[in-house]
């Protein structure tokens, strides 16, 4: 721990020295859900963002301009998140900020648009925050949930289980904003792809007994069942229940489901679980950016032998922040929130070195690209190449 502290302390000091001799630093703040019910991901998100910004500083900053990063814990509490945001705005005057939730983004949107003018990335994959018209300063770090569903449905349409009928799909989601967000769009997309939605199963948050829901699946016998609005429970009990009933349904998930936490709980039952992930995994081979991440971790966190996809979200958000700053500099514009916001639609055909496909924010403030993975021997392995919607 002390060695780690010294190492990161050195990096911070190094960044501080750079800041003193170079230009004004680019200040980035974050309200991170390190504690509370989002802590499972918050710690990794923060580490990913911290590591990427440290990596950029090690490379000489953004064309010589160092990055200064300040984060605080919010406990995944909207009130604390808003308070922390306001405190950090007054104290650090950032040009970019990372927020803890969709709710925080929606609550702060009017003030960000009219008063703070700071580019805002977050944990959120909500479609609403990718709406450039209402939320011009906000972006989603990858595809929205709608788009993640779209990618899965596109995959299903290309991989029907029977040739004599359309693919049969079930949507299985929690009764929360997180769970319900993509469902209306997913229904429309399924229709467009010629997929039949045979049932929609809704559970309360933290549902444990899923017998009736599994019976519902047995009644409709879908080829595929897509989970939304869960991290781990009740997915294992649903999959085991379905196996007990002899269903050969393929189960799928979106970003927050696609971690080793789920596969560890599922054990052998996890074999064949599929889902969409917007970023490459730690164990993916031949991905240049993953090699950089592994190399960075070898140097700074020698004890670490795995990073989950939450870490990759933090890393990717850092990449977007830096890309926006680079675009500003390339245009000869000062790196302000206002100018950074104008650069979001300018990110187009951006090669992320295999990390997140070729990213484009041209159509909305989200990047509709992801890859379908399948669980094999306790790891998610690519089942498709990078898939793009709107193609």
């Amino acid at each position, binding site marked *: 721990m002390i060695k780690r502290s010294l190492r990161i302390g050195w990096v911070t000091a190094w960044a501080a020295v750079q800041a003193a001799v170079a230009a004004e630093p680019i200040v980035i703040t974050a309200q991170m859900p390190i504690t509370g019910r989002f802590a499972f991901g918050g710690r990794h998100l923060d580490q990913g963002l911290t590591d990427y910004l440290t990596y950029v500083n090690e490379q000489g900053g953004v064309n010589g301009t160092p990055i200064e990063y300040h984060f605080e*814990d919010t406990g995944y509490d909207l009130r604390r998140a808003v*308070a922390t945001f306001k405190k950090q705005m007054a104290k650090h005057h950032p040009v970019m900020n990372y927020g803890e939730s969709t709710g925080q983004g929606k609550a702060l949107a*009017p003030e960000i648009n009219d008063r703070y003018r700071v580019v805002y990335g977050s944990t959120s994959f909500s479609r609403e925050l990718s709406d450039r018209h209402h939320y011009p300063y906000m972006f989603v770090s990858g595809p929205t949930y709608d788009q993640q569903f779209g990618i899965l449905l596109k995959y299903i349409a290309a991989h029907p289980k029977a040739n004599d009928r359309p693919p049969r799909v079930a949507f299985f989601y929690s009764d929360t904003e997180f769970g319900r967000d993509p469902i209306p769009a997913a229904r429309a997309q399924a229709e467009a792809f010629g997929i039949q939605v045979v049932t929609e199963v809704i559970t309360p948050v933290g549902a444990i007994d899923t017998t009736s829901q599994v019976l519902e699946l047995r009644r409709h016998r879908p080829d595929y069942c897509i989970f939304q609005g869960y991290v781990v429970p009740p997915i294992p009990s649903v999959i085991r229940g379905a196996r007990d009933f002899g269903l050969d349904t393929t189960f799928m998930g979106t970003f927050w489901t696609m971690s080793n936490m789920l596969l560890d709980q599922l054990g052998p039952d996890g074999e064949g679980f599929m889902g969409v992930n917007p970023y490459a995994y730690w164990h993916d081979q031949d991905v240049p950016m993953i090699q950089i991440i592994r190399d960075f971790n070898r140097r700074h966190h020698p004890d670490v032998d795995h990073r989950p996809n939450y870490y990759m979200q933090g890393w990717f958000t850092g990449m977007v922040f830096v890309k926006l700053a680079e675009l500003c500099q390339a245009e000869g514009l000062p790196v302000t929130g206002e100018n950074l916001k104008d650069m979001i639609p300018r990110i187009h055909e951006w090669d992320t070195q295999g990390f997140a496909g070729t990213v484009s924010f041209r159509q909305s403030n989200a990047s509709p690209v992801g890859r379908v993975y399948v669980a094999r021997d306790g790891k998610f392995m690519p089942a498709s190449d990078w898939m793009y919607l709107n193609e």
Partner: protein
Amino acid sequence: MRIGHFKETYTADEAVFQSGFVRSALVLLFLGLAGFPFVAGPYWLYLANHAAIAITAAVGLNILTGFAGQISLGHAAFVGIGAYTAAILSSRWGWPILVCLPVSGFTAAVCGLVVGAPSMRMKGLYLCITTLAAQMIFEFLFVRAEPLTNGIRGINVPPAEVFGLVLDTEGKLYFVTIPVMMAAVTAGRNLFRTRVGRAWVAIRDRDISAELMGINLFRYKLLAFAVSSFYAGVAGCLYAHLYKVVTPEHFPLHESVRYLAMIIIGGLGSVLGAIYGAIFMTLVPELLQWILGRFQQAHPAIMQDLFPLQTVVFGALIVAFLVFEPHGLAEMWRRLKDAFRLWPFHRE
């Protein structure tokens, strides 16, 4: 050394603020509150607004639970009803906040009357469970009454307006939240100098005796639910205009438990206690965050491990307060005042 107040009239005996010192302190407090927006930054003003809203809601719950003895686990739902009412009125029809405030309060009060109806037949833990059911039902309605509430996406609320002046910053909104909070506290304090307030206390202390004295239990219990919900509704209206968005996830069960914690920590059956409890629950987490923030500069790498300690320390503080002073912060404050007043002759 001052040992007491000598009063020559009943009016003096009934005065809320009984000494010149208290009145001077209050004047200073009002001046301080009035001047605060001119010296404080957005963060502190946001916290002040947030604390004022919590105080308004907590005073309401203290009327129901602390004074009338009816435990409620549905207070957050009533705050939600007020917030949704204000959000709908201001976003669809552009109603100004000064009209939304009473309408939100009355809407919540009507719902409170309905929820309070079972108090005719139930009390104690049984009534508590019915309020829990009310919390669940209203949470369900916030999600499912989509034409009204916009479902899970919630409602974006435009900035409040007072006589054409747009209150788009926390500094401007402060001039609504603080007066409303002060009015709520004043009304709450005076309520217990009336027949209604005394009837509530009588019901809390012994309902059978109260009934024998001629107090209509059902009527007064319902009234307690209505008044408490009115406070919650007003707090909800302020909440909607502070956060500018209202979604079902803002009013969960644990929020109701938080309000209950406020009045228990502050002191049940004390308006001052509700104020202290609300301030404690609002500001102590920020204080802990600030302390960790000092530490963060020196040891950035270990902050991820230290942040979870905040929750532990906060919980330990609550337990410590309840162990050492079960009557809450208000009682601690009273003892502290006595100690100063009687010093050096004061003994525990």
